[in-house]
């Protein structure tokens, strides 16, 4: 089972890289996009609302959330269990991260869906 999580950790890293590129492009290179006739200031109220209502973008946000949470918490768990403290409480550390991860994922997904006005 550990191998599956390990592979997902790497895969999540790769997917996050691609999604982050998209994010940086959308949020920080909008001036460039404006020049070629697309996009506008991403922080304008209309832009925020438009993105929130876009099903594809909302799905990507949820995926981003899932992979970011998994990648972050799995990496943190690996760092922690190499320390004396983490090793002593390995099971507790794993459970806490699972619970925290699931909670944050549900919370984030709910917020994303709600923001879209569903």
């Amino acid at each position, binding site marked *: 089972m550990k191998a599956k999580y390990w592979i997902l950790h790497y895969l999540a890293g790769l997917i996050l890289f691609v999604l982050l590129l998209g994010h940086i492009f959308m949020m920080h290179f909008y001036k460039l996009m404006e020049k070629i006739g697309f996009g506008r200031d991403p922080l304008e109220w209309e832009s925020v609302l438009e993105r929130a209502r876009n099903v594809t973008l909302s799905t990507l946000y949820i995926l981003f959330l899932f992979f970011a949470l998994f990648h972050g918490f799995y990496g943190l768990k690996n760092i922690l269990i*190499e320390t004396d403290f983490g090793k002593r409480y390995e099971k507790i550390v794993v459970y806490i991260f699972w619970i925290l991860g699931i909670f944050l994922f549900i919370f984030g997904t709910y917020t994303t869906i709600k923001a879209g006005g569903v």
Partner: protein
Amino acid sequence: MKVKFIIKRYIPELAKNGFDKFEIEVKEGMTVLDALLYIKENLDPTLSLRFSCRMGICGSCGMIINGKPELACHTQIKKIVENGKIKVEPIPNLTLIRDLVPDLQSAFMKHKKIKPYLIRKDEKEQESPTREYKQTPSELLEYLQFSYCIQCGLCISSCPVSSTDEDFLEPYVLAQAYRYCVDSRDEGLFERLEIVSKSHGVLNCHFAGGCSKACPKGVDPALAIQLLKRLILKKTFGLLKEKKGNNIVPPYPEGPNKDKVPKAPPKSV
């Protein structure tokens, strides 16, 4: 040439923990082990160190010499002396028993965990082998490099994971796991992959590569670890099949020349 040896001393019953200095005359061809033995025999008989073969085979004399992991019996003083000084310390990342003697017990126990022997489904043949197993030279090359390990523990001294995680399976143990996994005579591939992919196993390697740099025998544990990860990846995606080990060599045919083989001479003793 006079050389000053700065040697780590640790004698728990005397609460001694520090460095002692000894200045000795070194001759051409002298190794660090020769110098340490000279000091032990002539200057301080309480100095503790471990050695056996004196020729880079037993793996007993691993230590940190002028900051680098080396085999003392394989290190020429002339080549490494800096400003007339040589600093000798025990291997870190292991419990220290005394002076230059680390406790390798935990590493040996981890080695035992990965079943460092040929696993065969036919337990009877495994327990009481009748003949050797077949193996081609190219099958031998699959693992040969990794079988040169002498368990000196120098790779442990330069592994950042071993330094923080005492449960980590250790670089050489993982290299040995790979060595048996790819042995064409072995049938314990999945069993071993299961063991090494547990927590504190091969997946916790940070790939710093220090182990390969430290190894005095060219084993390259970092390579074995990456290859082991590849096997795990393949197994997880169902792309790896459990191996069927090579068969045993058939009995030697009783050829027509058998009678021509001269008889052994009578016992002389």
